[in-house]
């Protein structure tokens, strides 16, 4: 498990990182925590000439508040997000999901931005980010641009972050007072999700006023179950009402078949887990 040799760069500012990226050419990988990249390098599934480590860029770390948004620097570790009161209060769904990521060692090394850009559909932060209508701040030599959640995940391991660009922050609209639940289904605790459902709902007088639902590992990208979201609006937060609304959770999805389950089983799980997540989020 020894990687092929590579040049290692550790810039201390976003500006330096961008110019390093520009100079590096094609054969470069960005290290953002390394919980996926290092196994790839050690197993020699990839052997880049250069690795640019963002770990020393302080401006990419930390959680802050910006009006109606919670802003999370791309290099903030899972552990720091998990410990953040701001996130817990205004985007509790993300807190729920991160509590389920792998194990404490990985949560202290891995970063939210790294995971989002790696874009493994079985990863746990994509679906809640999608459900929370997160905005993705992408920085390149030409400056910053903001991409909506629905446009960020493009395919398996592919995002809107282009060549020479970095994800620098995510901006999550505050969902203060919303209920939330991340239902993760695994065989052993440290596994990637076989299927998971991220649900956050606003309940008003026993009725679901708004619902946001993201699906993990139900296709090549995290997915949003918009039909279920709409069907839930105005429904009582009861088992029966929610069960009906969630029946269509897997419609239109194309989940993978592998060691842990086939496509049909995943679709079945998605409907069960969506109901459970919504009920829990609604306090039912």
């Amino acid at each position, binding site marked *: *498990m*020894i990687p*092929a*040799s590579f040049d290692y760069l550790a810039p201390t500012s976003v500006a330096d990182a961008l110019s390093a990226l520009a100079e590096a050419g094609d*054969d470069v990988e960005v290290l953002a925590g390394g919980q*996926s990249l290092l*196994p*790839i390098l050690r*197993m*020699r*599934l*990839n*052997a880049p000439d250069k690795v640019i480590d963002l770990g020393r860029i302080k401006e990419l770390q930390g959680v802050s508040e910006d009006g109606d948004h919670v802003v999370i620097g791309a290099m903030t570790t899972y552990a720091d997000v998990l410990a953040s009161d701001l996130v817990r209060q205004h985007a509790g769904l993300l807190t729920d999901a991160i509590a389920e990521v792998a*194990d404490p060692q990985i949560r202290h090394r891995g970063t939210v931005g790294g995971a989002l850009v790696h874009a*493994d559909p*079985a990863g746990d932060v994509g679906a809640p980010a999608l459900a929370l209508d997160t905005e993705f701040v992408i920085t390149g030599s030409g400056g910053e641009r903001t991409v909506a959640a629905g446009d960020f995940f493009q395919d*398996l*391991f592919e995002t809107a972050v282009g060549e020479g660009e970095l994800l620098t922050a995510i901006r999550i609209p505050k969902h203060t007072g919303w209920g939330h639940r991340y239902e993760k*289904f695994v*065989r*052993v*605790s*440290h*596994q*990637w999700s*076989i299927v998971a459902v991220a649900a956050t709902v606003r309940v008003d007088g026993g009725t679901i006023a708004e619902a946001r639902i993201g699906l993990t*590992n139900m296709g090549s990208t995290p997915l949003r179950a918009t039909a279920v979201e709409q069907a839930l609006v105005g429904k009582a937060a009861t088992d029966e009402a929610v069960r009906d609304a969630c029946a269509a959770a897997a419609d239109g999805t194309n989940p*993978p*078949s*592998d*060691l*842990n*389950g*086939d496509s049909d*089983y995943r679709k*079945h*799980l998605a409907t*069960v*887990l969506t109901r459970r997540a919504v009920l829990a989020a609604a306090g039912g």
Partner: protein
Amino acid sequence: MTVTEERTGTPEIGNRRLRKEDQRLITGRTRWTDNIILPGMLHAAMVRSPHAHAMVTGIDTEAARKAPGVVAVVTGADVKDGQGAVANAWPITADQKAPAHLPIVLDHVACAGEIVAVVVARTAAQARDAAELVDVDYDELPAVLDAKEAVDDAVLAHPDLGTNKSALWRLDSADQGSGGDVDEEIDKARAEGIVIEREIRQQRLIPSFMEPRSTVVDPTGEQITVWTSTQVPHILRFLIAATTGIPESKVRVIAPDVGGGFGGKLQTTAEEFATLAVARLVGKPVKYTETRSESLVSGHHGRDQYQKLTLAATKDGTVTALKVDLIANLGAYVGLVGGGVPVLGAWMYNAIYKFRAYRFTVQTVLTNTTWVDAYRGAGRPEATFAIERLMDDLAAEVGVDPLQIREQNWIRNDEFPFTSVAGMTYDSGNYEVATARAVELFDYEGLRREQSERRERKDPVQLGIGVSTFTEMCGLAPSRVLGALNYGAGGWEHASVRMLATGKVEVITGTSPHGQGHETAWSQIAADRLGVPFEDIEVLHGDTQIAPRGLDTYGSRSLVVGGEAVVRAADKVVEKAKVVAAHLLEASADDLEFSNGRFTVRGTDNGIGITEIATAQFTSHNLPAGFEPGIDADATFDPDDFSFPHGTHLCAVEVDTETGQTTMRKYVCVDDVGQIINPLIVEGQVHGGLLQGIAQALWEEAVFDDQGTLVTGSFVDYTLPTAADTISFVTENTTSPSTTNTLGTKGVGEAGSIASTPAVVNAVVDALRPLGVTDVQMPCTPKRVWKAIQSAGSVSDAATIDSAQPHFDPGAPNQDAPDTGTSTNGAGQ
């Protein structure tokens, strides 16, 4: 002279001592093989075949030889037969077919992961880099992977052999006179009783020891020294001599601290022999340490059997006959005891029940998969699983509680010693007491009540209760039995006790611990026997120069056989010391008593300590006339018979019928492992064993794709549980001392892993029986459980899909795609 502590007189045997070896083992600040650094040491990297079955048609090593730091690139052609061989020590039949197993292949690759070339370089990184540059041309051959397909001989794993069938071995109670005719009894039951027929798949497992295997070979001295992460240093030394032609006296093997084995290091490996070969070739010390990925594909695997079972009983559920037909997948080669693993189960299918007739047949077959050999329990877990699943099915058929059907059929306490239908004599046991205690600890009735309530209210989460009343045979092994089975060695064990001049004691054992706690337990035994403080005893092991005689550690043998050797050596020391004591006390030896480390003249205060006698023999100033100085002693113990631990295991599992998820609720076991030396070590052994057995039931399975590539090639896909996946077990013990050794000990190393698997699967099936489910194939994954519920018992559509989800970009550059070309780079990892 050092003053030694006085003994308090509290027995060490039975004391919950913290393990003296734990600090260094747990912190890792110790001599693991990979921690060894020798002057001028070079590093090896293996070039492995990505193909399951192929001919090597060319190896281009030029680029690798020119790479920085490379000292040598060695192929099979460079070392040929001089590299020795990976041997099979137990031909189970006279006509067993066992293909030659060369460490570095000459041209024929029989499974993925075989070593094709070895790169030796100044650093491990340089060796790895250069290994990527070795270009191997392969002609791929069709591969046979499944044991049932192998029986047909349509595709041959080793075309030269002309068949995949290695050996057919049979035990028949009518033939050997230990019971009646199986077919007669089954016919009778078909007419007027109950016949249960099942086929069970024992999936393939991978023994996942904590420390990957590592070997350092130093060829520069008069003796070649081999440090290696092994369970069997003595066997390795013998086999190096036997297969390479190096005189045995020129080989020293050291197993330093070894981080787990579970049978996975009960092997002499291709990697050990390849490292030895290249070290001799370059004349310098060489280290090789495997990666985890290499370990999973090239360390031997376990289990992988198809079990066809027929149980006959009378209408009231009294068992009469059992017929077992196995097909056992040996993988590409017959390992050290690979063919013998299913045979070790032959005496255990009848378990604790009084069958009248029994027949066991196993067909071992060769395939193009990683070779299969011992894994914790070795043959006995498979047997126990089969019979305990059948007994639950019998209970369901008769309509009685699974505990009742067992009690109706088991050997009663007043029937010991009991000779089983398979011909084994069980030394002692008390199934009634262990079961009663387990039932009490478990709250069996309370959980049964909850189960029926959940059934009544159609709770989506159902509760199942699983029973396993197991026994096993421990203490490998009486040499006469091994001889009768044509095993290539004896089963004795050796110990020496050295009484040092300063009053300290060295106990040398031929067993080779790799996590069991022998240093602590052997110290406890010797402390009681010699009457010296626990702290004054050092236990030495695992080095053929320090412990020249030994047969190592496996098969729950160390305490039962090796511990008894310590007892006998210590007793000899006391006998020798007594002569000196009588002389110094000016008394007759007949008048001396020995207690708490002191000889006293009976009826007086006149006495002398055994450590003072150790000093006296060192100075030799005043010894009896003609007494040869020295009170050290050796002993070799060869057991007359096996010991038979047993236990009652009860497991409650919640099954979420909506998802198929299983959640363990409660696990209670009451094991009778005979006399306990250290209760803390026993608990640790049982806890670890339980989780390994539960892992077979719920989580672990080695999966190959149809090309013979190991899909579960990392811990991403080989789903090993962690502490986070389990619950707190309730473990207790009852004690029926063994009658086959003076300590009364039985074995405990494998008990948990043997007993727990059927308890868990029985619980899962028990939860779902009202839904029409009668079986769930292992591992009982949520998908399989859910599909079993959907199809009410038929599990045919719940086969494991042989592909893994890519969590890393499959399109990344420089990735080898093993099954798309005939020429690849060599890494294969």
